[in-house]
């Protein structure tokens, strides 16, 4: 039972991290109709900014907080310099241009921070385990990730559902032309949304950094999963991204934690341990395909 609880928490923590990354992606895709492959680069830049700022301030929390406005600024710059020119183009042009951005950012990081990768230490006050139940230890940093991720998700839900900006974002996601026709400053809104997406991506990157490592291309691997999440959740839907991220987080953990033992109940140990990683690797794609058959626009997507 304790073991099950820990694995569920692992799934939640993974899901929240994925949600932060997917939130920005689904907003830019849903509102600007922009396929932004470089979203993973913003995730990477968040981690590198945090690494530098933590070095300067000597404090994890302070460095992390300062990295967020830096990410926002970077997002706005990318929007103005590159992304803005792509909205009217078709998806292939967008893929090409944002793929170019990935290469650009990877080389930029190599030039500034070097090829070898950096590491951010877990802050001292979190470098221990907490007992979530008596006698059930859980890494404190991962627990903190769950807390921060939940708070940010609630803030985002409030922003989208209860504020004027959120109203415009939702309106933009369902009908872009209409809100432009109504005289909303669409350029400003787009810059803002892009910057916001960059902040969430950067936050995910810097929070993942102490668990993983800060390295070139760190966002490229995780980006594919983020795309799966926004497709399952429905493009443009924050709620969808959240639900899908939670589902994908749990599926991933189930595939890794329980599938090998489950397979062993009806096949040999050797073939089970060979088959399990292969199956868990494709599990989320199978779920994505199933969701698309059932609901072609995703769980919470706009019906068209």
């Amino acid at each position, binding site marked *: 039972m304790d*073991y099950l609880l*820990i*694995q569920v928490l*692992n799934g939640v*923590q*993974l899901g929240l991290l994925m949600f932060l990354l997917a939130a920005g992606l689904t907003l830019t895709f849903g509102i600007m109709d922009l396929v932004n492959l470089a979203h993973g680069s913003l995730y990477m830049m968040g981690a590198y900014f945090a690494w530098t700022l933590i070095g300067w301030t000597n404090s994890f929390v302070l460095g992390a907080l300062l990295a967020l406005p830096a990410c926002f600024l970077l997002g706005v710059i990318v929007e103005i310099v590159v992304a803005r020119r792509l909205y009217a183009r078709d998806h292939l042009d967008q893929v090409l241009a944002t793929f170019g951005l990935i290469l650009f950012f*990877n080389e930029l990081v*190599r030039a500034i921070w070097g*090829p*070898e*990768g*950096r*590491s951010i230490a*877990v802050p001292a006050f979190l*470098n*221990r*385990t907490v007992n979530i139940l008596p006698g059930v*230890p859980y*890494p404190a*940093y*991962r627990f903190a990730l769950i807390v921060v991720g939940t708070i940010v998700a609630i803030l985002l839900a409030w922003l989208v559902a209860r504020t004027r900006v959120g109203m415009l974002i939702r309106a933009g996601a369902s009908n872009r032309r209409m809100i432009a026709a109504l005289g909303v400053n669409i350029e400003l809104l787009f810059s803002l949304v892009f910057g916001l997406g960059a902040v969430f991506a950067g936050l995910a990157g810097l929070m*993942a950094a*102490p*668990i*993983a*490592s800060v*390295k*070139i*291309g*760190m966002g*490229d*691997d*995780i980006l*594919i999963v983020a795309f799966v999440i926004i497709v399952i959740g429905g493009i443009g839907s924050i709620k969808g991204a959240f639900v899908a991220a939670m589902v994908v987080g749990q599926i*991933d*953990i189930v595939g*890794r*934690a329980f599938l*090998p033992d489950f397979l062993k109940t009806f096949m040999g140990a050797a073939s089970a*341990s*060979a088959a*399990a*990683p*292969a199956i*868990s*690797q494709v599990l989320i794609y199978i779920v994505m395909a199933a969701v698309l058959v059932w609901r072609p626009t995703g769980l919470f997507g706009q019906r068209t």
Partner: protein
Amino acid sequence: MKRTLLAAATIAAILGFALPSVQAQQSVKIGFVSTFSGSQAAIGEDMRRSVDLAVEHLGGKMAGKPIQIVYEDDQFKPDVGKQKSEKLVQQDKVNFVSGYIWSNVLLASLKTVVDEGDTILVGANAGPSQIAGELCNKNFFSTSWQNDQTPMAMGEYLNKKGVKSLYLMGPNYAAGKDMLAGVQRTYKGKIAGEDFTKWPDQLDFSAELAKIAQVKPAGIFIFYPGAHGVQFLKQYVQAGLNKTIPLYQVFSIDAITLPQQGELALGTLGAQEWVNDLPNEQNKRYVADFKKKYGVYPSYYGAQSYDAIMLIDSAVEALKGDLSDKAKIRAELMKANFKSLRGGFKFNTNHFPIQNFYIQEAVKDAEGKMTVKTIATAITDGKDSYYQKCAMK
């Protein structure tokens, strides 16, 4: 107008005829495939630095001919590695191909180089079991090891140490499978569990670590090269497992990863065929010059690359620079008549080294930098377990 035309014609003539023929005859051209971009670029950088140092130590020449190294980036992808290998063989017409960190990249590129290109390949890291066994080739030589061997050395050591049970973890690709098979070949204790994780994109090991905490084995054995080793060690410590279950590793704590792992790695044991403190003259010179030039310790990736260049040099020197007869080159390479950084080795019939393996511990040096030092010899003159499947005798 006339003059420009004439100049252009002259340049064209030089470029078109003179240069290639002169170069083809005078330089020894070596193609070097490794990973120079992305998350594992640090490994490729270490190899490139060592190759550059080897060329420097050779005075830039082999048998009086200038050495020309053509570096190609496989981007950590088998398909790209194959394309780049093809380019080196077909277009650059190199005399030798070397490098290759990853078993899956090497397996994808092998045929292109040794069969279709009939070019000699000196592998500087990857050692998939297939190439040691049924896929062995007269044109393939290795200055590293067969994948199973290093974990086999660890397994031997764990037997001596009396570790009763072991939980195995590694990535789900050619080398990961070889490594976990290797440790089970020698380790006689109980296998408490085995997990293959997604390669190369799994960054989170929380599910597996929770499983290990549940099973409570007497030790954990891992194979997570480069950036993945950094990730694993951090999460292992964060989960608090370092206090209860000791970690044993191959290729996961080294000069590439230690700057990031820092003190988390202290005291962790690993196995390797080369360690920076091996007491032979050429190794002392290599390590000292590398540290002086680049300010960091070299890794076994670099040492094996350095050896690859020196092995090639031994053949070129013996043939006085005449590289026209491939059979003669192979015969010279087979002698392994050079001063290896690991203190010399012989080639087995499958062209893999017969060599020692050592146990190393992660420690701090006098200056407070993290490094590894040799604490024991695990295997003496070890042969890999596949050479009998190789058709070459």
